[in-house]
């Protein structure tokens, strides 16, 4: 029944230069962010492929042979393999996809190939989200989506001008948004990936690690990336009290501190303290299990647990933005019980390092009456030591603590905390290094505290028999400015970031506004997970939130939306005017009596013939005919006449 040549079949319609221009333009928009990340030669190659295709289109020569295209593809894949040593994994996969978009263009002859390339463009959009899902990315990709859609419309309507095609694309997207919103809210979400991800899937995540050695916190301090945001329900703790506790380091090998895989102890959270805070944290993914909490956490989020040294651990590494609620108390009441094995571990030191520090500690130990006094001697030693706080500390040799304490006297928080714990242990006071974040910036717009990687900090905890574990921040002792006014002020010598200067206040305010928006975006768009879905469904009164209830609701909503769309689609259709409708009703009434109007019969002839055939209604029929002729062809059609016509037709009785 269908002949071979179907003028609407995409496989039979050749792409025009205009189609090609639209297609390459929209693909370039999608690829643009990747071009910054991909190796330069690949970006260049993709651009060359685009240009090559245009050369063919403008010169009207046949496309290159399949073998040539395959050869280019093979060479490019070899290049990718040399670059990454694999073809699988996220980054190589994406650059290959980018390459294929260019190659697909090169063999695009018909609209079917072109449409396939456009669909590839849709898929390339999502690959950008693997790197960033920020608002600017979303806006750029929205533009790309719009462009690709307009391109597809151009394929279907080759004779139409681009402007109406753009208008249609906007209309289509406007109609798609409510459907998309319903799907976004109601589509049943799952928590876990469907299968294993490539090994480099989480390579981009930054944050604290399980180890601490000179230099790794200071490199983190240069990063402006956000670690987490915290929103407090009531009052806020002061800047100097905002210690966000993270991994605890126990074991020292002379250079690197390591956290313990397992701490054989039970941790009991503090019940009371001087002040209590309730707050929610939105943690950026860091691919580790620990969660950050204001010192000292009095509760754990659901499904998380305490480790023996008081860390809060999630069951799985945090790989998506995670929101949790917590409460913390300041200055908890002392808890002096501790597992003896743990205390022994907190005294262990590697033999043969830092003889000067060992000697100093031995001296303190001999002179002091108790451990409290040892600690206070150490604190005053640091305070009077004229230590400098710097992001670029001098390199240290094997006896890193000795060199820092007595020689270079300049370091970052990891140097201070490492040296302090070393001294404490050498003096017989159990001590451990705690890493985490200190401070955070309060956004006055939404009262949310943003903690960045640059707020990464290391401090110490010492165990005193009367007071239990007590926090001592040697950096704060030696360089008081660090904790009171944040990192930027403490760096007196290093140049300040532009934003931090007082005269750029307006810039900072703008940034606050932007970050408040970004936070909302993170929570509601990016962080919309099964839990949030459940909360929202409970809010609107859908109790049973298993996937069946969600699916049923979803389909109901989608059905209603489709019906509304259909109603809309008939809105701009022109209906016959009332006079025409009345005339048609009249013809239908006569036809039911066997007097059918033949298509070429004028109204006058028809009315006269009908009047002869149905003499009982003669007057009415002739009047209707005359009225209709007057309204249709007469010089001054009046509304009164039209109403009269409608009334007459309605009241016409023929039986």
């Amino acid at each position, binding site marked *: 029944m269908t002949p071979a040549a179907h003028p609407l079949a995409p496989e039979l319609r050749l792409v025009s230069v205009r189609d090609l221009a639209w297609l390459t333009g929209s693909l370039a928009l999608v690829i643009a962010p990747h071009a910054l990340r991909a190796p330069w030669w690949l970006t260049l190659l993709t651009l060359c492929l685009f240009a090559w295709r245009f050369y063919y289109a403008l010169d009207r020569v046949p496309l290159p042979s399949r073998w040539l295209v395959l050869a280019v593809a093979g060479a490019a894949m070899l290049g990718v393999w040399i670059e990454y040593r694999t073809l699988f994994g996220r980054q190589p996969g994406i650059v290959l996809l980018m390459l294929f978009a260019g190659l697909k263009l090169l063999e695009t002859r018909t609209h079917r190939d072109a449409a396939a390339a456009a669909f590839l463009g849709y898929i390339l959009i999502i690959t950008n989200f693997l790197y960033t899902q920020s608002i600017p990315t979303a806006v750029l990709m929205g533009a790309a989506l719009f462009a690709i859609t307009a391109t597809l419309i151009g394929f*279907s309507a080759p004779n139409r001008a681009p402007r109406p095609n753009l208008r249609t694309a906007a209309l289509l997207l406007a109609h798609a948004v409510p459907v998309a919103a319903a799907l976004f809210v109601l*589509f049943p979400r799952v928590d876990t990936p469907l299968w294993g991800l490539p090994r480099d899937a989480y390579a981009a995540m930054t944050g604290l690690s399980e180890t601490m050695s000179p230099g790794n916190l200071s490199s983190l301090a240069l990063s402006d990336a956000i670690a987490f945001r915290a929103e407090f329900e009531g009052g806020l703790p002061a800047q100097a009290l905002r210690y966000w506790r993270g991994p605890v380091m126990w074991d020292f090998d002379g250079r690197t501190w390591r956290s313990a895989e397992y701490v054989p102890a039970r941790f009991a959270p503090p019940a009371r303290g001087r002040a209590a805070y309730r707050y929610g944290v939105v943690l950026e993914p860091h691919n580790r299990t620990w969660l950050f909490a204001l010192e000292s956490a009095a509760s754990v989020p659901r499904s998380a647990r305490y480790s023996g040294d008081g860390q809060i651990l999630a069951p799985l590494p945090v790989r998506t933005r995670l929101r949790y609620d917590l409460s913390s108390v300041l200055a908890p009441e002392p808890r002096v019980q501790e597992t003896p094995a743990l205390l022994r571990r907190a005294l262990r030191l590697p033999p043969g390092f830092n003889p000067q520090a060992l000697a100093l500690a031995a001296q303190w130990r001999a002179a002091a009456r108790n451990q409290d006094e040892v600690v206070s001697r150490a604190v005053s030693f640091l305070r009077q030591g004229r230590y400098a706080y710097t992001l670029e500390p001098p390199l240290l040799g094997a006896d890193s603590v000795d060199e820092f304490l007595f020689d270079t006297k300049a370091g970052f928080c990891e140097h201070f905390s490492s040296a302090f714990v070393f001294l404490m242990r050498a003096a017989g006071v159990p001590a451990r290094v705690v890493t985490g974040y200190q401070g955070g910036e309060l956004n006055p717009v939404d009262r949310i505290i943003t903690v960045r990687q640059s707020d990464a900090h290391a401090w110490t905890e010492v165990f005193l028999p009367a007071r239990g574990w007590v926090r001592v921040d040697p950096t704060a002792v030696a360089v008081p400015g660090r904790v009171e006014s944040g990192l930027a002020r403490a760096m007196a010598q290093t140049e300040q970031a532009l934003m931090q200067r007082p005269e750029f206040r307006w810039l900072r305010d703008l940034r606050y506004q932007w970050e408040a928006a970004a936070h909302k975006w993170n929570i509601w768009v990016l962080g919309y997970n099964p839990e949030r879905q459940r909360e929202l469904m409970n809010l609107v009164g859908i109790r049973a939130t298993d996937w069946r209830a969600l699916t049923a609701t979803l389909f109901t909503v989608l059905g209603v939306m489709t019906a509304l769309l259909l109603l809309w689609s008939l809105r701009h259709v022109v209906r016959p005017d009332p006079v025409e409708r009345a005339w048609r009703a009249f013809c239908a009434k006569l036809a039911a009596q066997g007097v059918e109007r033949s298509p070429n019969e004028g109204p006058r002839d028809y009315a006269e013939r009908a009047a002869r055939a149905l003499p009982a209604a003669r007057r009415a029929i002739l009047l209707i005919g005359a009225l209709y002729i007057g309204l249709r062809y007469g010089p001054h059609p009046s509304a009164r006449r039209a109403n009269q016509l409608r009334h007459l037709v309605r009241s016409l009785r023929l039986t």
Partner: protein
Amino acid sequence: MIGGILARNPRLANWLYGFEPPERGTVVLGHRRVYIVPARLGWLYGAALAILLIGSINYQLGLGFALTFLLAGLGLAGMVHTARNLTRIGVSAGRAQPVFAGERAQFRLHLDSRARFDRPAILARHLGSGSQLVVDIPQLSIAEVVLEAPAARRGWLPIGRLLLETRFPLGLFRAWTYVEPDARCLVYPKPERSPLPPPAAHAAGAAQRAPAAGNEDFSGLRSYQLSDSPRHVAWKAVARSDQMLTKQFTGETAAELWLDGQLLPAGLGLEQRLSRLAGWVLAAQRSGAHYGLRLPGVEIAPGRGDSHAGACLRALALYPPP
């Protein structure tokens, strides 16, 4: 397969497509008779959506979900828009010029947009002949499509079933409808070339009227009459004088010519007779003769001109008269 079944059972097809052909006047395509299925590209699009959804779930991409669902919404909106592109078009057929059997009838089809939006890329196809055309209908206006169908036999040729199809805007869906307007084309018998019969005894009385106007020798100009053949219009003179003028000739064959079925050899079948008569009508018309047509049950008085020829050919096409 389904197409085959429907072709064999027109009543089933009519029931399925919801109309009883032929449809009089302007046929407005209601949404109930517009069918829609995903095109092949639509399935490809669906596969791309599945990839996007799996990727979003696997990598927990909030924006990935947003993109996937936006594209799903786009597909749904595209479906409605595709159906809308066809719904409520008014289809009516124009007059088709008569043709001779063996030629191709040309049916004019008027597609009335009846909407305040344009309807691009609508395919109209004559199912019987495969003749097809893609038109764009601008908003609130009418597009004309000419579809050809082979005219095999003399008589009335109904237009037959037409397909209207569109894939606009995204090409993901294919919406179509069938329509069979009340349009027909008159098909004259295939003319057979043969020498004209001599002006027979019947012509005797008319012979005195000579000299009658023929088309052999140019004798002057007169003002144009509607029945004059365009071949005789003095175009050069028209260009000069701004008035339609016809060249007048003095003919020799001024005699009345009767094209009588009885003059044909007895062995011919009806169709052959009609064919030969049609050939005679054309030849007589060309020669400018004053001719009439006579067949059992039909007699057309002698005359000349295009409308006279039309009347004769029509009688032949529809022979025997009802």
